[in-house]
């Protein structure tokens, strides 16, 4: 997927002008947080589970090489192959090579953010292999040639009417007069369309929610069962996963799974939780003949050992998006790349560089809601600040911002000068604003006064009045 992160401000403006999107985001902002709260109320030990899950991932990240090697050897033991890929290009070429080795025409896919990250669909298409998304949301946005706007609800930006239009345009083989009025009919149509594709695919490509080192197992959670069909029906299966998905044991995986769905969709557990280990064994009825795992780095190892290492605890639950007031205002596409919301604002600069994604860590009020809902206790505001610090050190922010900040800091460090400058300024503003109590517009304050009035100051500063005594006493006496 091509990055549009440099266009963040423009993307955000366009998104906010879209009334349909605003409605969809309101629904999301009301639905998921409520369901999360209810799911957590049903599980008193939720916070202890979060601590346990965090500890598991911290331990794993501290011994990442060890667990990845264990995972690799277990996959091989089960008859699978592991391919280590440093870059997205390496991964794309390896996937194509596997597809070509079996002369594949079609590849069914089950939701994978990594697939989006390396733009595998475009690459396969360019090379004569047709990728077919099988998650309903992903299928819809594939037909519309759009990127996902949410990590667990990729088509959350669309409404039912838009999905109906999309299906009518894409499924031209069906009766134009058919009824597509309700979600059920849309779902039925997608199921029928996808059924043959599941059965006829040459290769199945899935992501991984977790990779279990102890057993060489790939864990997939879905609500539609599409990952199971993608894994079990085609002759060849490819798992694509980034390195930090590894978890030491089956037991550990159970712990992390308990916080995943509760945080994201507010379910106790997803409808399907599938554990796939290697290709079909001699006595198995189903399963692929070949099982490949693409282990992708794509910048992750560069975050290990830095102030951003904790980001690698992320289990892609989507909770920080669901609760973020900035995400609610602009939606996922505005972020301009695969990931979005608070987790995206931290992860994207880590993967493509702060010079490419300079707006993302800044476009946050640091309200802290994301951290309070993160099941893995990732200190997202702290890391957003850390990116701003790196950006400041590289002089990556605007000259005007640096100048204004520098001026304020210079004053703040010199109390006498601060008083000498701010005192007369506030007095002047107080006199100017006395009549209305506020300003509709002020020079150099356009950012503020565009959307809102600027309250006028009351007059001389508090500290000046307090230390002058009599004036302070007059104001004080009013309340007594």
């Amino acid at each position: 997927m091509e990055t549009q992160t440099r266009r963040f401000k423009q993307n955000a403006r366009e998104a906010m002008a879209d009334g349909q999107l605003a409605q969809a985001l309101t629904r999301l902002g009301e639905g998921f947080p409520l369901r999360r709260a209810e799911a957590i109320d049903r599980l008193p030990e939720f916070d202890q589970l979060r601590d346990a899950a965090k500890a598991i991932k911290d331990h794993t990240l501290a011994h990442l090489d060890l667990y990845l090697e264990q995972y690799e050897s277990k996959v091989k033991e089960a008859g699978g192959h592991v391919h280590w890929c440093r870059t997205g290009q390496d991964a794309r070429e390896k996937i194509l090579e596997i597809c070509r080795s079996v002369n594949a025409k079609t590849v069914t896919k089950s939701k994978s953010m990594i697939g989006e990250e390396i733009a595998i669909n475009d690459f396969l298409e360019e090379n004569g292999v047709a990728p077919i998304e099988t998650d309903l949301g992903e299928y819809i946005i594939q037909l519309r040639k759009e990127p996902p706007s949410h990590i667990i609800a990729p088509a959350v930006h669309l409404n039912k009417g838009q999905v109906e239009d999309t299906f009518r345009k894409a499924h031209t083989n069906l009766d134009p007069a058919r009824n597509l009025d309700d979600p059920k009919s849309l779902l039925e149509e997608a199921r029928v369309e996808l059924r043959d594709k599941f059965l006829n695919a040459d290769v199945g490509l899935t992501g991984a929610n977790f990779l279990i080192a102890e057993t060489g197992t790939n864990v997939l959670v879905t609500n539609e069962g599409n990952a199971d069909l993608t894994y079990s029906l085609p002759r060849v299966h490819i798992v694509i996963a980034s390195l930090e998905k590894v978890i030491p044991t089956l037991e550990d995986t159970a712990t992390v799974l308990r916080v995943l769905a509760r945080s994201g969709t507010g379910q106790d557990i997803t409808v399907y939780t599938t554990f796939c280990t290697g290709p079909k064994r001699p006595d198995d009825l189903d399963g692929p003949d070949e099982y490949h795992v693409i282990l992708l780095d794509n910048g992750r190892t560069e975050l290990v050992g830095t102030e951003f290492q904790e980001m690698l605890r992320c289990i892609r639950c989507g909770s920080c998006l669901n609760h973020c007031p900035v995400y609610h205002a602009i939606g996922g596409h505005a972020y301009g790349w695969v990931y979005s919301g608070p987790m995206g604002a931290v992860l994207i600069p880590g993967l493509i560089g702060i010079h490419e994604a300079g707006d993302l860590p800044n476009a946050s009020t640091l309200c802290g809601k994301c951290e309070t809902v993160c099941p893995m206790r990732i200190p997202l505001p702290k890391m957003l600040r850390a990116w701003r610090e790196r950006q400041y050190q590289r002089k990556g922010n605007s000259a005007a911002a640096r100048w204004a900040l520098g001026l304020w800091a210079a004053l703040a460090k010199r109390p006498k000068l601060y008083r000498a400058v701010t005192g007369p300024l506030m007095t002047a503003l107080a006199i100017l604003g006395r009549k209305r109590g506020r300003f509709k517009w002020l020079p150099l304050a356009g950012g503020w006064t565009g959307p809102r009035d600027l309250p006028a100051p009351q007059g001389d500063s508090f500290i000046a009045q307090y230390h002058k005594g009599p004036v302070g006493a007059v104001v004080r006496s009013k309340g007594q």
Partner: protein
Amino acid sequence: MTEYAPALKNPPTSPEVGLFATCLVDLMRPSVGFATVKLLEDAGCRVSVPEAQTCCGQPAYNSGDSADARDIAKNVIAVFEGFDYVVAPSGSCAGMISHHYPHLLKDDAAWKARAEALAAKTFELVAFLADVMQADISPPDLGVTATYHDSCSGLRELGIKAQPRALLGKVGGLTLVEGDIPETCCGFGGLFCVKYPDISEKMVDAKADDILATGADLLLAGDLGCLMNMAGRLKGRGASVQARHVAEVLAGMTDQPAIGEADEDTA
């Protein structure tokens, strides 16, 4: 999120409190400063307002300018470390001192302990009154329907939620109506509101809608930044809801025009 228990098990009966006025209160709304002094003195504190204070350094810190933020933090520490307690009428600035100064100065051997010591005795005003002083306030009656906004730093860094509501419960005639989203950020975010004005507008509009839906006549909060943002938008939309810092109501100092209003608006 943060442990915010009173620092001293047996607080002095008449503690010496350094008032950190915050730059916004100092420059924009002195009445909040005077209300704070009154509340603290009524609770039995001896209050000082050091003249050498300016800003807590948050604009620099949140913009990635840690070097300047550290210098400003050291100034605040030097000015305030002699008091029994430091109190600010702002969850954001109190959070900066008590939550972020220790992090900011963690690698500075000389300053780390001083930052931690100051952090342990720095409080937001309303939490200080309720938790540390357990103040028995008796604010004058005020016949009004009010709604309260939980400012982000106070709520999430300092755990302030029950205290303002408990104290407002002592104001006779005040009916508190909760909005649907009292804990949602108003879109102020310091420099965020000027760097991303249109996103901020969308956020403050959601808040304004929620505030108006409560039918309240008065919006209260513990942070002037959020209040100026919400009041500015409400006034810009022509709404009649007044906005005040919670300290003004608790101190009974509501004779000054509300935030963003002129004398004639209140007449």
